């Protein structure tokens, strides 16, 4: 009997430990995957550059043959210097695995810094580090092609015999500026709509609403809404908010405003519930004290009770921001899945999460950049959670 008992205890303990272990591994793997794939593309440029690569065709201004003093790149593998033009290039690989030639360094006095554009309407273009050189054509010589490798490219460009005719190059592209801005817009517009509405609803339910079947039903209804899959909100958005915004604004299609409206509906239950929870813990004594001082119900609610719910409202705001950043399914319907570099609230664009979806449905799927965005989203969510804890801590300390 005792032996059996001990055995079953052991088994139960092992199972609990194993479960914890597996859960931690599962969560750890997500971080590992996102970090290992996403970290190499993480840079500040990512936030400032466009998603779509822009190509340039340009000619050099007439130049004299010189020899530039180049910085020492001998430590970097795959970097080839071209002293003749003050350039350094390196061998790179694009997202599809093809070899490309990337600009590593441009000397400030290099002729590549001010080239004459062949495009209509643009006068000069400049080459920057991280641009991609596609090809360079010469007068009376065969063109240098990037797919033959950076080493040969550098040799040919360094050859004083060859007179450069045209330079074909492009931006790196793959930036997330547009999606980043869209996400910021979404957060701002959504909170603007949902926060006051949610807080006031919570105030009504907790302070003013009579306790009866109707209000109880409404509460249950709101609680249920938190569990509804977001794609259903997407349906609501596309059938109500998109037509509404098309009718009332310059929008002609799915758009950012309709997206924020849909998100507002999604986060309303979160804000209502969190705020109500924090209103519930305001001591009844404080309400009584305020009323006993001759303040009326409204004054008591907004001057005494609501300020004490600040912490809850802040928490709900952070939770809501997390939800907005992480939302994708509903937004694909209501906001669109086309990555934009120029964001307008009346047009389609993608949030960061939808950006991932959009890239992973591309052919070939861009796992590296997706992971980078995922890493960014994880970082923001982590930051929000820490902020919640920090704000609770700070508000509590201030109260003492």
């Amino acid at each position, binding site marked *: 009997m005792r032996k059996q008992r001990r055995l079953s205890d052991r088994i139960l303990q092992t199972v609990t430990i194993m479960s914890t272990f597996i859960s931690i591994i599962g969560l750890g793997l997500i971080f590992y995957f996102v970090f290992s794939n996403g970290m190499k593309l993480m840079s500040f440029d990512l936030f400032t550059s466009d998603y779509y690569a822009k190509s340039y065709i340009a000619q050099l201004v007439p130049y004299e043959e010189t020899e530039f003093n180049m910085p020492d790149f001998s430590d970097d593998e795959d970097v080839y210097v071209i002293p003749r033009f003050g350039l350094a290039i390196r061998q790179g690989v694009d997202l599809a695995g093809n070899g490309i030639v990337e600009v590593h360094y441009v000397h400030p006095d290099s002729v590549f810094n001010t080239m004459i554009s062949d495009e209509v309407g643009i006068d000069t273009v400049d080459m920057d580090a991280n641009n991609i050189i596609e090809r360079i054509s010469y007068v009376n010589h065969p063109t240098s092609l990037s797919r033959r490798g950076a080493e040969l490219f550098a040799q040919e460009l360094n050859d004083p015999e060859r007179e450069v005719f045209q330079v074909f190059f492009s931006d790196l592209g793959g930036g997330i500026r547009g999606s980043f801005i869209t996400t910021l817009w979404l957060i701002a517009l959504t909170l603007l709509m949902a926060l006051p509405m949610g807080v006031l609803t919570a105030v009504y339910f907790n302070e003013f609403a009579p306790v009866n079947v109707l209000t109880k039903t409404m509460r249950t209804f709101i609680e249920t809404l938190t569990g509804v899959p977001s794609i259903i909100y997407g349906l609501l958005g596309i059938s109500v908010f998109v037509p509404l915004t098309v009718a009332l604004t310059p929008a002609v299609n799915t758009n950012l405003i309709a997206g924020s409206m849909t998100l507002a509906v999604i986060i309303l239950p979160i804000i209502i519930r969190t705020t109500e929870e924090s209103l519930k813990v305001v*001591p009844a*004594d*404080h*309400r*009584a*004290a*305020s*009323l*006993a*001082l*001759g*303040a*009326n119900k409204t*004054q008591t609610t907004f*001057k*005494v009770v609501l*300020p*004490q719910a600040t912490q809850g409202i802040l928490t709900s705001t952070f939770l809501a921001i997390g939800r907005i950043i992480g939302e994708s399914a509903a937004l694909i319907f209501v906001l669109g899945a086309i990555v934009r570099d120029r964001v307008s609230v009346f047009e389609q664009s993608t949030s960061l999460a939808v950006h991932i979806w959009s890239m992973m449905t591309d052919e070939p799927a861009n796992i590296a950049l997706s992971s980078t965005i995922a890493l960014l989203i994880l970082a923001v969510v982590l930051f929000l959670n820490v902020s919640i804890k920090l704000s609770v801590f700070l508000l509590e300390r*201030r*109260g*003492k």
Partner: protein
Amino acid sequence: MEKVISVEHCDLFYGDFQALKDVSLPIYRHKVTALIGPSGCGKSTFIRVLNRMNDLIPSCKVTGSIQFNHEETYGSGYDVIELRKKVGMVFQKPNPFPMSIFDNIAFGPRQQGIKDKVKLQAIVERSLKQAALWEEVNDRLNQSALSLSGGQQQRLCIARAIAMEPEVILMDEPTSALDPIATQKIENLIEELKKDYTIVIVTHSMQQAARISDYTAFFYMGELLEFDVTKTLFVSPKLKQTEDYVTGRFG
């Protein structure tokens, strides 16, 4: 002697439960009236009739005549806000708002529309001085009221009630959450305050009632059994039950 509040034949029901049975009691101006009795006897319920705080309980029904300055407070059209401005209240547990000391005291006047900074400062200073708290806090009026000790918090609550310049201050066991020294300070304060205000105090402590009150009302099971000058009630009570209670034989 002038009555500030006069209660005649007051019955109070919570739903079907009768919490007060035919209570008639005068409250005299500039006197301290103590309400004593065992737990659940209705004394706290009664004190809440006086400023209509029972209104907050939906199932609560009050009948009878309750007059404040000869006006029926439960009459139709009577302004409950005006009543509460004139009949202030201090609760069992110190309950300052989580604001600065200044804002706590200025809260009541501010809700009445007083915005003038100088005026508010004068009110705060006067109230804190009357509540014997000014010396202790005048250098930190902007600090949170929650940083004060329990006894200081309770005096702050008294100051907050005084700021409204009430005629009557109701105190519902104001010292039950405090230590003896803080209690002593509050009792001394009540002694001072009765020069300007009428005080009704609910207390569990017979000694406290004997020390500070001029009149004492003994409640039992929702009924007012005996009401008299404190000394008389403690020394030669008319009823056996009162005698048993004040001598500590039950309760």
